[in-house]
């Protein structure tokens, strides 16, 4: 492990934010500090340097910490750097060591040396030239490109200490967690809802999660799968909760009382209603779903519209314009793919009609809503929900 004692974090989109900038920067810094406090055992100094946040510690930062920080919404990139004595030979040796670690892929690079201490005997341009020659000689897969390089080797020389960095970790960008508000995400075990959650997290929405657990129609393994998924989703948040709502009885009641082809639509309607009840309780501004358009036969515009009309909360559907392949690619990028593919029983497929309704009859729905009031059942289900809390300051639930 490299001896990284300094991390430089660039913040995304702060330039957009005018008057709010301070507030956003502070939010981001808080999140970073909370994670460091959990994962780093020594004191740290966190200071602002123009658009950047610089974190320093007397002991090296672990890879685990870096891996946790790169998922924070608002982080554009993270560069770890090593700190050495301002001795020319030592600087060159350390720089070569760092370069040695980037792997064997063909890449272009550029050396960027800055002499903050002008008394240092060797000029920046000379350092640049020396390393620009030395590196390709020793690592033939690396070539100099001063205009558009893949990698930067940065060397900052102060009077006693010199900072060298080579690696850049790309963050997910966007806005710091919680800056735009709080939402409730309807999560299932599939590909879509985790990606929907991620996209909104990237836009600065803190979130709680609701999972409709259709026990005994589905087994405990589905809940286990959701908990595994939460291990991935919690990386975006300062603090979030998962509500596991027992829904088997409600689903069965709905299934018994409606036309078979309306089951899927009505399950969704009452899941949204239940979510709205919870959202109001926990001060969430709206709901996030993984809905897509036309991905499965029940996802028609007519059905989506019918559900919007029957729900009192705003529903955010960030996946509506995405193709399945794009969603799956994103799931690989954020590491949720292999959890989504774990096989599990799906209650809806058990209840699912052979042909779900595509164009619902508004009159039938109106009558059904009038005849059937599940508010009490939904409240009951919420009261019986299991709640799991995920907090970035703590290791476990």
């Amino acid at each position: 492990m490299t001896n990284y004692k300094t991390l430089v974090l660039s913040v995304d989109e702060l330039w957009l934010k005018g008057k709010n900038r301070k507030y956003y920067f502070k939010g981001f810094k808080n999140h970073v500090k909370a994670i460091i406090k959990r994962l780093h055992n020594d004191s740290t100094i966190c200071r602002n340097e123009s658009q950047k946040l610089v974190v320093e510690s007397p002991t090296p930062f672990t890879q685990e910490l870096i891996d946790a920080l790169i998922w924070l919404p608002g982080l554009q990139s993270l560069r770890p750097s090593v700190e050495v004595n301002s001795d020319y030979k030592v600087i060159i040796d350390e720089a070569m060591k760092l370069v040695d670690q980037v792997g064997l892929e063909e890449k272009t690079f550029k050396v960027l040396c800055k002499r903050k201490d002008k008394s240092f005997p060797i000029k920046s341009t000379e350092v640049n030239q020396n390393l620009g020659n030395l590196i390709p000689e020793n690592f033939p897969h690396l070539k100099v490109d001063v205009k558009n390089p893949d990698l930067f080797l940065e060397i900052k020389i102060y009077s006693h200490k010199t900072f060298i960095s080579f690696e850049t970790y790309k963050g997910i960008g966007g806005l710091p967690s919680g800056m735009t508000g709080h939402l409730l995400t309807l999560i299932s075990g599939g590909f879509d809802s985790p990606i929907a959650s991620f996209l909104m997290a990237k836009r600065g929405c803190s979130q709680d999660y609701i999972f409709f657990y259709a026990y005994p129609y589905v087994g405990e393994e589905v809940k286990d799968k959701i908990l595994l998924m939460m291990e991935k989703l919690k990386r975006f948040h300062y603090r979030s909760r998962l509500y596991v709502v027992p829904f088997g009885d409600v689903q069965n009641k709905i299934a018994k009382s409606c036309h078979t082809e309306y089951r899927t639509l009505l399950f969704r309607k009452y899941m949204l209603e239940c979510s709205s009840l919870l959202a109001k309780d926990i001060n969430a501004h709206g709901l996030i779903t993984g809905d897509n358009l036309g991905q499965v036969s029940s996802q028609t515009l007519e059905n989506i519209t019918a559900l919007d009309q029957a729900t009192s909360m705003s529903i955010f559907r960030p996946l509506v314009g995405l193709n399945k392949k794009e969603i799956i690619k994103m799931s690989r990028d954020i590491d949720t793919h292999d959890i989504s593919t774990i096989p599990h029983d799906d209650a809806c497929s058990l209840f699912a009609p052979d042909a779900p309704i595509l164009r619902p009859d508004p009159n039938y729905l109106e009558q059904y809503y009038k005849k059937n009031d599940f508010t009490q059942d939904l409240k009951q289900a919420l009261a019986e929900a299991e709640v799991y809390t995920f907090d970035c300051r703590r290791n476990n639930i």
Partner: protein
Amino acid sequence: MIYLDYASTSPLKQKVLEGLHKCLNEEFANPSSAHKLGKGLAKKLEQLEKDFLKDFDPEAELIFTSGATESNNMIIKGLDFEDNEHILYNRADHPSIVNVVESQKTPRVAFDEKNLLEKINGKSRLLLLTHIHNLSGVITPYLDQVKEIKKKYPRLHVHIDGAQAFGKYSISDIGADSYSFSGHKFGGPKGIGGLFLNSDVDLKPLIEGGGQQKELRSGTINYPFIHALSLAYKQREDAQKVMGLKEMIKSELKEYFQFPFEHMNTSAFILLAQIEKVSSDILLRFLESKNIYISSSSACSSKIKGFNPTYNAMGIEEKYHKNILRISLSSQTNQEEIKQFCIEVKEVFKEIKHLLRK
């Protein structure tokens, strides 16, 4: 609680629990020790062995193992095979047979409930039979033919996995060369069982060390558990009584379940049921929420069709692979429990009947 999963494992019989407790406390010595305590236990052990052997074959040997899985492994891995000699096995059998056979380099030939006699020849070295099938409860139709087969093919070793039969059905006069069993299937402790072995069989040991148990299985002899095993065995299971309970389930629930193996000769203790349309896991969970415990198709339900190679080998159509339940009983089961079980099953079906017609 209504426990109907005895074929998986059974609770300790009360007398076994008491006896085991006392024995662990008082008869803890090592039967291989040279002192009085050890020698005393060695004598007792000899008597226990004799009592067991009486029912199998007084001339044979008995090796105590951790259970039928180990005993099956001992036979499959410990027998000597000459070039081109093969193992005969049934793919529908327990994983401690099928997986072990299929992981060996020894050639293998699969047979089923009908074609064994066509598959046996002079190159057959080991025949693996299952006394009572762990899922279907079918009693192997080849049991009566073991002696005849042995006469015709003297080098063929016939091994019987008796995990679901021992302590429940007679094992005398079968004519097999070896027979394995587990204590926990009939009210004994888990982790103890045995292997009956004809004394002229040459077997390479699986576990080597101090050579306890006739150089065939090393490790300190677990006297208290062997004692408990014999206590469980003495309290024989009552197949006739249990058959009555099984018949009761069959007649009460015939509208809800099919019993695809019941036209064959099956054990009183195991009933395999097949359900139309509903995955058996759902029924299992409904029942567990009422504190009733049975077994279903698979421990892990799967979205992928749920193809199960064992069911396939048993001849169950793939479309039913997720719709199989196993109800298993013991002498400890009573009529009240069965009545209640049937009532609850009917309740569940009432609750979900609208799901069955789409």
